[in-house]
């Protein structure tokens, strides 16, 4: 995969409950370079989840176009864990594999701190643990495109830090194209090499920043400095 992924949404409307229509996205164009880690930051309700769904080919009911190779393996971490409640943790992960019998999931399970949880049902897990299982499921297929829709919310900072490290490792190892939606600017500054700021509904690109410094060289001071700068330049959008 070397071609950039392209997404152009001319118009996306939802049918409201009372028959009216709600415009979720209008005239949004995004391109994601292959192998890069892009963070999308935008206010709640501006259409981030909607755009990701369209990009992944899960919603065809829109005006516009998507350029995504048909055989792209997509690892999708949804905003909610979306695990099958009637399957155990391990079965939830195995489900998405092409060859579930030959795959060794132990390293992944260990890395995500899920060992001992394999036989539990999702209803027995805390939300934080369920999020880790959802992340494990997405990483298990060795995706070409990793889509993360606010994957680290409701996790304590230590766990979130560890999981971010894991995502970073997985991304580096396979040169996956990664897209992360987040409200957490520090998170974006730690992980991404490109940050796209979106305006409130309907979504529109306000800023597109590249971060040249490799992730492992980014210190806390660097992140804080960048954050302060961004808060100054885009007050109201960045906190």
């Amino acid at each position, binding site marked *: 995969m070397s071609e950039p992924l392209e997404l152009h949404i001319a118009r996306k409307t939802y049918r409201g409950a009372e028959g009216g229509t709600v415009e979720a996205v209008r005239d949004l164009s995004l391109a994601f370079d292959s192998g890069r880690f892009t963070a999308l930051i935008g206010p709640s309700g501006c259409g981030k989840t909607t755009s990701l769904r369209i990009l992944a080919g899960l919603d065809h009911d829109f005006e516009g176009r998507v350029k995504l190779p048909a055989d792209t393996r997509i690892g999708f971490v949804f905003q909610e864990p979306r695990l099958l409640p009637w399957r155990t943790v391990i079965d939830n992960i195995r*489900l998405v594999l092409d060859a579930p019998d030959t795959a060794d999931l132990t390293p992944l399970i260990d890395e995500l701190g899920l060992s001992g949880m394999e036989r539990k049902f999702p209803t027995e897990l805390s939300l934080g643990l369920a999020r880790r299982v959802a992340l494990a499921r997405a990483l298990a297929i060795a995706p070409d495109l990793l889509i993360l829709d606010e994957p680290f919310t409701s996790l304590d900072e230590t766990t979130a830090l560890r999981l971010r490290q894991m995502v970073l490792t997985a991304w580096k190892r396979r040169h996956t194209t990664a897209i992360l939606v987040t409200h957490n600017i520090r998170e974006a500054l730690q992980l991404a090499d490109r940050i796209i700021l979106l305006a409130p509904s309907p979504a529109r690109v306000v800023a597109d920043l590249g971060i040249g410094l490799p992730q492992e060289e980014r210190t806390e001071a660097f992140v804080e400095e960048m954050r302060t700068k961004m808060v100054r330049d885009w007050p109201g959008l960045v906190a």
Partner: protein
Amino acid sequence: MPMGVRSAAGRRTVTAGLSAVILIGVWGLVAAISPSRTLPAPWEVATALGDEITSGRLPWHLFCTLSRVSAAFLLAMSLGSAIGIAMGRHRAVNEALDLWLVVLLNLPALVIIIMAYMWFGLTEAAAIGAVALNKLPNVVVTLREGARALDPDLDQMARAFRLSWRKRMAHVVLPQLTPYFAASARSGLALVWKIVLVVELLGRSNGIGFQLNMFFQLFDMASILAYAISFVAVMLAAEMLILQPFERRANRWRVRTA
């Protein structure tokens, strides 16, 4: 309690047993006070039951009826589920079949049975088909409801990970439909065995329904009760030994909050 029955299941068994004993006691008392041909005493029924079992007649007719019940039940459940799920998932299928569903729902069982016998003769296939057709619309309606209630988020997850049709069915769709299967199986079994007796009475030469009709001609109430009771006992056992364990297994993952 002297025996110290603690578990809820144990208590339930004791209560059920007690109420059965009381019923039989009252029955025996009434039969003793006013003896009549239409209300034989419990021991007379027990004697008739013993005779029918040792002669091999009751096991044979019970076997015939149970075979028809299972054949019609399986046919109605599998066909009805497939149609119901298709109707719930695809609007076009629903629109095409909805009228027929309403017709079938409102057609009296007797009409279907008579039509089946007249068109296809007094055959086993006509008998089983007629029973299945009576049960079919209920299964369709229940599973259509289930298919409409499927979680679209999980469906989306399945599509995002490109799950095959088989995997989607086995792991995403069917588990969500388990309560609907259980509901239609439970109401279905009760309905099917009642209709099977009618089918046997009208056009078969074996089975419980055929025997009941024969004893009716002979005005032999003891034998009628013997057959009825043994049949109810078998259906009760099927409910407790097959349906309930299946439901418990399928619901293992639900966390009990109560």
